[in-house]
C-alpha cells in the first residue's frame, strides 16, 4: 500500500526550498542588487522596448507601481538602467538596460542556482521542474499581493 507523506516531511522540504532560494542571494546589504531589482533587470533584457515602462513591469511582477519606481530609481543611480522620455508621450519613460546592466546580468544569482540544479541527474532535474510548475499552477498561483509588497520593500 502506498505510504502518504507526512506534514513533517513537507515542512522540512519547504524549509530547505526556502533556504535554497535565500542562499541564491548571498548578500542582503543595501549595496547589493536586491531580488526585485534582479527581476527588473531580467525583464528589461527579455521584453520588447515598447513594454519597458514602469506600468508594464509592475503588471508583469504583480506589484503596484511604487515599489517598481523605487527599484528602477535605485538601478538608475547605479547606472544599471537609464530612462528616456517617450517621443509621443513625454509623461512616460522607457527604461533601458545600460552596458553595465547587461554585464551585471551575467552574474545573475539565478545562474548559480541553475548550475547547482544541473549537477543533479536528468530525471531529478525534470522532477524538480515538474514539481515547481505543479506547485504554482495547482495550489493557488503566485499573486499574494501583500507578501509580494513586503518582499518588494
Amino acid at each position, binding site marked *: 500500500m502506498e505510504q502518504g507523506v507526512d506534514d513533517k516531511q513537507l515542512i522540512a522540504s519547504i524549509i530547505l526550498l526556502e533556504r535554497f532560494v535565500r542562499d541564491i542571494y548571498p548578500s542582503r546589504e543595501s549595496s547589493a542588487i536586491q531580488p526585485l531589482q534582479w*527581476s527588473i533587470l531580467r*525583464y528589461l533584457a*527579455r*521584453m*520588447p522596448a*515598447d*513594454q519597458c515602462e514602469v506600468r*508594464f513591469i509592475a*503588471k*508583469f*511582477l*504583480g506589484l503596484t507601481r511604487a515599489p517598481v519606481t523605487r527599484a528602477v530609481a535605485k538601478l538608475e543611480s547605479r547606472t544599471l538602467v537609464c530612462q528616456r522620455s517617450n517621443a509621443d508621450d513625454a509623461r512616460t519613460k522607457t527604461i533601458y538596460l545600460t552596458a553595465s546592466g547587461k554585464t551585471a546580468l551575467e552574474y545573475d544569482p539565478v545562474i548559480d542556482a541553475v548550475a547547482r540544479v544541473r549537477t543533479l541527474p536528468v530525471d531529478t532535474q525534470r522532477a524538480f*521542474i515538474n514539481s*515547481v*510548475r505543479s506547485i*504554482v*499552477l495547482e495550489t*493557488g*498561483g*503566485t*499573486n499574494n499581493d501583500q507578501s*509580494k509588497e513586503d518582499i518588494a520593500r
Partner: protein
Amino acid sequence: MTNPKRILLVEDDAAVRDIIKEFLTSQGFDVIEADNVDTAIAAISAHASFDLAVIDFLLEDTTAISIMDALASQGTRIPVIAISGGNETIDMEAIQAISDISGAVTFLQKPFAKEALIDAVTAALHA
C-alpha cells in the same frame, strides 16, 4: 511560389483573436484559429503540420499546457509564442516561467504592439 507558413492561433478572447488573425493574415501567414483546448487539439489533429503557434497561455478555465504537449507530440519541434494578460491568481512573471518550462520560445505580455508580435514570429521561424 512557396506555401505560406501555417500558424496555429489559440486565443479565447474573440476580439483579440480576430485582431491577431487579421494582422498575421495580412502579413502572409495561413492562420488556423482555435478558442479553447479542445478545438486547438482538434486543429492539431486535422492539419498536417504547423510552422508556429501563438497561444494564450491562460485560457478560460485552464492553461495551454496540454496544447503545447499535443504540438510536441507531432514529432517536429514547433516554436510556440506564449501570450497572456495574466489573471487575479497568478502574475505574469510566473506565467512566463511556466510557459518557458512548457516549451514556449517567447512570451509576450498583453497588450503588445503588432511590431512586437511580428518580431517574435520572425525570430521564432528563423531560430
